[in-house]
Each structure stands twice: as structure tokens, then as C-alpha cells.
């Protein structure tokens, strides 16, 4: 206590000085127009900076939200494109005006973020941060904005596991765009950017650079989702089919967002397919 008093006494001049200096500045700013304006402007610059910083921080935290909303938007657009393409293929004689929205809606897309993925293994899987609660079911196709990713293999309440294209067990029905020959796409190499299209009969005319898309024969994918381009093709001795090397359009290791394709009439189609087997 004595020390405190001593300290106060020792620095009394400084304290009084600061106090009155503060009062002076307060008076200057409150009662002088030009000084007041400078003060207000300076403080605006100051507070402006702070607010800018705060906005940046807020942006950082709301980025996820923004991304999600963009993801949903993208899903809607892709959905429209896919549905329109499917419809126009089947009903090329019908004009667009005569359509009603419901007949267009065969496929709907569920946007998802990628939680984790493996790329370099023989059997590569990808985990999406959505699950059965969001409407994901086993067997649904998963695409990104650039092309096919894989097929949903397992679903929990909040997560789902996707069997990627670049998985030894993966088998996707694909066709050559514009030519109609279709086959199965499998992954035999260890290169994550290259796949093999098998079961294409050898009478088909193929050129390097032909575009490979999904066939739409399975319930997983709508037709004409891009996959890649033909880079090479060979016929093994004694075989009736081509082995076509396909370069993927995009790098699977870079995907961060994906869309799960829900075929609204999948049950119908599945029953039909199964009955065909029998």
C-alpha cells in the first residue's frame, strides 16, 4: 500500500499530464470542426480496417456455407442438364414447351462433400459426408462436375462409402459417344488416370480421341456422363473384343465435392432388369 502511494506520488506529474492531455484532445475533437472531421475520418479508416479484417474472418468461417450453397446450385443445374438430355433423347419428336416438369425429372442429384479418399491403393474408396439420412442408397452413381467417380457401396446414417472407378472391383457400363458400341469399364492399370474399356466387339470402328461416356443401361448412371477419351486400342490374340485404353478426363485425386445420382424410378427399372435376368 505504501509502495502504491509512493508510486502514485512519484508519477503524479505524469498522471496529471496524461489526464489533462486527454481532456485537451477530447476538447479539440469535440469542439473544433476541422479537427473533428479529421478525427472522424481517421477513425473511420481505422474502424474500416478492423471491419475488413472481421469480414475476412467471417468469410473464412462462412466459406463452407457458401460452398455448400454453390454445391446445391450446381447439383440443380447438372440435374436439369442430365434430365433434359435423357428426355430429349427419348422424345426427340416432342417440343420442349409441351413438357411438364415431372416427366422431366428422372434423376435428382444430391450434393456431397468428400470426407476422405484413397487414391493409390489397388482398391480405392471414397467417403462422402452424407448418408442414408440425406437419401443416399447402395448402388447409386457418384459423379463430379467433370465426370464419373464411382458407385455407392455402403451407407451409414451420415456417411457413405463409394467404390471408385479406380478400384479393382469396379465395373461400369460405358459406351463410345456417337457410335453406340458399349462395353464395361474396368481398372487394370495402377495409373489413376487411365482405365480399360473391355467387351467392345471388334467390328466396331474406333479412333484415338473418341469420347467415352456412361451408357445409361445401368440404374447407377444416366446416359452420357463423360468419363474419358480413347488413347489406345488393341485386340488380344484369339479375342473378339477390343481392349481400349481410356484416359480419364479429370484427376480423381483432386475431387472435393461430388453428386450422388438418385434415379427416381430406380425401383421400377431394377425390377424390370431383374425380371429380364430370370
Amino acid at each position: 500500500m505504501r509502495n502504491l502511494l509512493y508510486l502514485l506520488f512519484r508519477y503524479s506529474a505524469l498522471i496529471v499530464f496524461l489526464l489533462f492531455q486527454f481532456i485537451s484532445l477530447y476538447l479539440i475533437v469535440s469542439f473544433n470542426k476541422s479537427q473533428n472531421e479529421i478525427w472522424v475520418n481517421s477513425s473511420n479508416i481505422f474502424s474500416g480496417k478492423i471491419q475488413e479484417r472481421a469480414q475476412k474472418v467471417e468469410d473464412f468461417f462462412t466459406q463452407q456455407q457458401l460452398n455448400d450453397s454453390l454445391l446445391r446450385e450446381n447439383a440443380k443445374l447438372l440435374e436439369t442438364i442430365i434430365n433434359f438430355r435423357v428426355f430429349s433423347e427419348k422424345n426427340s419428336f416432342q417440343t420442349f414447351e409441351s413438357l411438364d416438369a415431372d416427366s422431366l425429372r428422372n434423376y435428382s442429384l444430391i450434393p456431397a462433400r468428400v470426407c476422405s479418399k484413397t487414391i493409390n491403393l489397388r482398391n480405392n474408396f471414397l467417403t462422402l459426408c452424407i448418408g442414408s439420412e440425406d437419401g443416399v442408397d447402395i448402388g447409386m452413381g457418384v459423379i463430379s462436375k467433370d465426370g464419373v467417380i464411382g458407385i455407392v457401396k455402403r451407407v451409414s446414417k451420415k456417411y457413405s462409402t463409394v467404390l471408385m472407378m479406380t478400384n479393382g472391383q469396379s465395373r461400369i457400363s460405358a459406351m463410345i459417344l456417337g457410335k453406340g458400341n458399349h462395353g464395361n469399364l474396368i481398372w487394370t492399370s495402377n495409373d489413376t488416370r487411365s482405365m480399360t474399356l473391355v467387351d467392345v466387339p471388334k467390328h466396331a470402328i474406333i479412333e484415338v480421341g473418341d469420347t467415352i461416356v456412361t451408357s445409361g443401361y445401368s440404374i447407377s448412371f444416366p446416359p452420357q456422363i463423360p468419363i474419358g477419351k480413347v488413347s489406345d486400342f488393341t485386340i488380344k490374340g484369339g479375342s473378339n473384343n477390343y481392349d481400349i485404353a481410356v484416359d480419364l478426363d479429370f484427376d480423381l485425386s483432386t475431387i472435393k465435392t461430388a453428386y450422388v445420382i438418385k434415379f427416381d424410378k430406380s425401383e421400377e427399372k431394377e425390377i424390370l432388369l431383374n425380371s429380364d435376368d430370370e
Partner: protein
Amino acid sequence: MMNSLWSRNIIRTLFVLFIQLVLLKRINLTFGDFNYVHLTIYPVIIALLPYKMNRPLVIVAAFFLGLFVDFFYDSLGVHAGACTFVAFLRYYFLAFISPRDGYKKDALTSFEYGVPWFLTYMSMLLFAHLLVLYSYEAFSFVYIKEIVLRTIFSFIASLFLVMVGVLIFNPKY
């Protein structure tokens, strides 16, 4: 003795303030664009306050002195701030130019400590005062050139005036 020291200070304060606020304030030394000379002599009041006066008290007194000047200059706070500033610095100036045998007399005049000493003391005080004064007046270092020019020219003119006054009256207290 003590009474005369205080009464002298009070009388001097009133006298200097009268000159400052009634005469010098009206003098307009403008030559075309050259508007940098403002005669400011009243800091001499702070300079001549007794040496033994309590430091916080000096600051408080200087504040009210400045505030009083502000009422006349329509610049509330500007002079008060500058006065508070030099009142605070006065102690350090005095310590800086302390005579060899210290301050034996309470009156900080040229009569007691000599004209060269007083000139140094007054210069430091006045320069600091004017610099702070014009800084507060402009209130932004955007006007740094103007602040410096005003400080320098006003300093020369005001110091001249103060020294003339001090030499004429040669106050003992």
C-alpha cells in the same frame, strides 16, 4: 517573500495574457501566401512559474491557462493541450540545462540565472509549445510541412518578442 513571488506571477499572467489576447491576437503578419508567423508569447507564463512549484500543480495551472487562451482563439483544447505538454516537459528542460550549482533561487528569471541560460530555457519551451500547438491545430501529419514552417517562423518571431520583453522588464521574480 512568498507572497510577492505569487502576486508577481499572478500580475505577470494577467499582463501577458492581456498583451497576447488583446494585442498580439489582432496582429496579422501575412505576406501574400506567407502566413506562417503567429506571435505567441504567453508560454513565458509557464516558463516563469516558481521552480519549487508542485509538478502536477504546474500542469493543472498550465491546462487552465491554455483553456483560457482557447476561449479567445476559438480553438477549445488546442492551446490547453500544448500548455499541458510544455508544463510536463518543463521539469525535464530544467534538469537538462541545470546550472552547475543547481537551482538555488525559486524564480526562474534571467535576472537570477543570466540571459544566455534563460534564452536556452525559453527557446526549448517555446519551440515545444509551438510544435505541439500547430500539430494539434492541424491534427494530422498530412500537413507536416505547414506545421514545421509555422513552428519555425512563429518561433523566431515570438522568441524575439519574449526576449525583448524580458530584457525591458527584467523581472526579479
